[in-house]
């Protein structure tokens, strides 16, 4: 099919007038591309009080928006029929939304976190079963340093739907530890544990407490509450207590 | 073949917004540079903003004293994480990556642990009238340094942790003497032409006093002069300048 026939089928204009429109469309596109290109640095110079990284992300978003508008404006200058423009636009938007639905939700999550500041870097948060100190707030996720020494990435979108708790600065934990001592009375077990706990007291954030002391066959089972700021050392402290008890001649185990 | 070592470049600055961006970007171009650090002495002209834009690590010096060059240099050395720390003045108009590379090279070659930069320019008045005569008397082994007060310095980061930094203008010569006292290999290297703003005259009086004080203090500690004679000499030097 000749080229003019193709134009007619697509309802596109023909001749030198179309060439002028093409040039105009290129100019319009260039203007929007330039505006989009310089947007992040312009925003940086205007919003000095807001964190640089966040402004750069906002700037990038606005840049992309300007690029899209530029494309649409350029298409409209070409005098394509509204139907064609609308179809192109709707397809692009639907495609972007489908492809980046999680990404967009996470990005919106970051905007929520930054603007509403429900928490910031360094604070302690709990979301569902996940808990930890906020190491960094990123475009798509929040990095948490957990009490177990792990680094986990929580998608920002979870903070839009989930419930989180900000703990005060002095947040610590009470760790329950279980000991069993064979061949002793309840009173002897209580006394032995109290003396042993004194030796690990300097590592605790408060006084340890005996919660429950009960007999099970020839064992005495003792539940101990250990207040700890750094829960990572719980296992080491319990082991240290067991060694102390054994040195004193008790047949002791940590459960 | 020089050993591969990371370099941290430190610029002690105060109100040098117009220079900082170029200096940082040039420093990043030098070979081996892992970080550029701006230690700000309480600028009010947007120096920090410019430094951040240039992607420099930025900190404000711990003690805002005047002159606080030594405080800034100490903070820079502590903030740095590279194997070698290079200190440069930020207001060098012809700043080039070669300044950093030339200063770091003797350390990478393991020929020195502390390097002083000298340049193709007549040494300043304080150098000629104060530093050199005093070094000739009390530390003749350092008297052959052409520009003992040069702010272009490189050193192994760890060696900077072994010395006390003077707070003010005495820091450059103080470091030179301290490194020598510690037995670290020190050397001077020509870094070429340096286009640099000269200090105004009133600053030179303070500078002369502090440079002389830094040298004489160490001479007293090393038993090369008694305290009373050092004080008398210090007064005479300040009057001369």
């Amino acid at each position, binding site marked *: 099919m000749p080229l003019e026939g193709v134009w007619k089928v697509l309802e596109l204009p023909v001749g030198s007038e179309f060439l002028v429109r093409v040039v105009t469309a290129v100019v319009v596109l260039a203007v929007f591309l330039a505006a989009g290109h310089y947007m992040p640095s312009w925003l940086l110079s205007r919003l000095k009080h807001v964190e640089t990284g966040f402004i750069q992300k906002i700037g990038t978003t606005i840049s992309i928006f300007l690029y899209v508008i530029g494309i649409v404006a350029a298409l409209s200058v070409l005098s394509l029929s509204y139907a064609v423009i609308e179809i192109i636009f709707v397809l692009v938007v639907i495609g972007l939304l489908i492809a980046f639905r999680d990404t967009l939700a996470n990005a919106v999550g970051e905007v929520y976190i930054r603007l509403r500041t429900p928490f910031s870097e360094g604070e302690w948060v709990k979301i569902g079963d996940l808990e930890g100190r906020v190491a960094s707030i990123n475009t798509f996720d929040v990095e948490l340093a957990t009490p177990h020494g792990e680094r986990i990435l929580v998608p920002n979108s979870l903070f839009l739907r989930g419930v989180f708790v900000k703990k005060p600065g002095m947040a610590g934990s009470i760790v329950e530890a279980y000991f069993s001592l064979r061949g002793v009375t309840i009173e002897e077990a209580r006394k032995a544990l109290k003396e042993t706990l004194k030796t690990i007291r300097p590592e605790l954030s408060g006084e340890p407490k005996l919660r429950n002391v009960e007999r099970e066959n020839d064992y005495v089972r003792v539940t101990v509450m250990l207040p700890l700021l750094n829960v990572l050392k719980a296992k080491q402290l319990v082991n240290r207590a067991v060694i102390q008890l054994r040195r004193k001649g008790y047949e002791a185990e940590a459960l | 073949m020089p050993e591969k070592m990371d370099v941290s470049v430190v610029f002690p600055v105060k109100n040098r917004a117009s220079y900082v961006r170029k200096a940082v970007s040039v420093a990043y171009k030098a070979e081996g540079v892992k970080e550029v650090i701006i230690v700000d002495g309480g600028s009010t002209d947007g120096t920090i903003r410019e430094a951040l834009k240039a992607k420099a690590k930025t900190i404000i010096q711990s003690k805002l004293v005047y002159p606080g060059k030594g405080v800034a240099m100490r903070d820079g050395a502590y*903030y740095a994480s590279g194997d070698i720390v290079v200190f440069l003045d930020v207001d060098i108009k012809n700043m080039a990556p070669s300044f950093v590379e030339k200063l770091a090279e003797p350390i990478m070659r393991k020929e020195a642990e502390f390097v002083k930069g000298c340049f193709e320019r007549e040494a300043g008045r304080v150098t000629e009238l104060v530093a050199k005569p005093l070094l000739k008397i009390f530390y003749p082994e350092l008297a052959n340094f052409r520009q003992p007060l040069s702010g272009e310095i490189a050193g192994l980061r760890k060696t900077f942790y072994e010395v006390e930094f003077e707070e003010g203008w005495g820091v450059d010569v103080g470091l030179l003497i301290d490194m020598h006292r510690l037995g670290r290999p020190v050397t001077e290297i020509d870094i070429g032409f340096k286009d640099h703003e000269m200090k105004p005259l009133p600053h030179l009086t303070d500078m002369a006093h502090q440079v002389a004080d830094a040298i004489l203090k160490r001479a007293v500690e090393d038993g090369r002069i008694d305290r009373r004679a050092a004080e008398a000499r210090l007064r005479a030097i300040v009057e001369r300048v």
Partner: protein
Amino acid sequence: MRIVVFSGMTHTGGLAVATLREADPEGKLIIVEPTVEKSAAAKKQFPWAEVLKKNVDEFIEYLKETAQLIDVFVACSDSDAVNYRFCKTALDVGVPMVIPVLNNPLNRELFQRSGVSIIVNPYASIKPKLLEALKADGEISLYESLNSQIVLHAYKPTSRVKLESPEGEVCFLAVKADGSTVSKVREVDKNEVLYVLGVKDAVRRCLESVRAARGKRVSG
């Protein structure tokens, strides 16, 4: 608690060490000093603490190796640069509580950006104390609790103001012109100081209402 302090044996460092001892007398306090002289001085001044001599690099390694045992790290040397490096390392290796003591309050933002949530600013009392003593009228922010939830403000009125605040949200105390204190405060007059303690938002709302009532003369 196992508290590790890099004190630098400064005046601030000494005060911090003594305070940490007071906070947990039964705890384990480890003071780290960079030089032989400073560690000897620390041993002499704080005989109840464990003192270690470690330079900057050695201390960073120490933090990495013992992070699982450390509850609190406090950096109070006289260099914000070295304090920053230590705090950053301590945070990265998972020390639960990291507290720098600032030398220059202008570096607060740098520490905040690194993720430190508790920052001690020794200069923080200068402004409220001077304003409380010298400012003739208006609001003065006196205290903000660690998690910024509880605040204490002072208010010096220019004329008599009737207080209309919901019960229970904030606590009022007033110091009268003759120096006496009043706890059940209904109104406050010129030359008197009103102290408002409460949750941040409630105190803000309360002071807004006081400002709005300003100028409305109270009869009697």
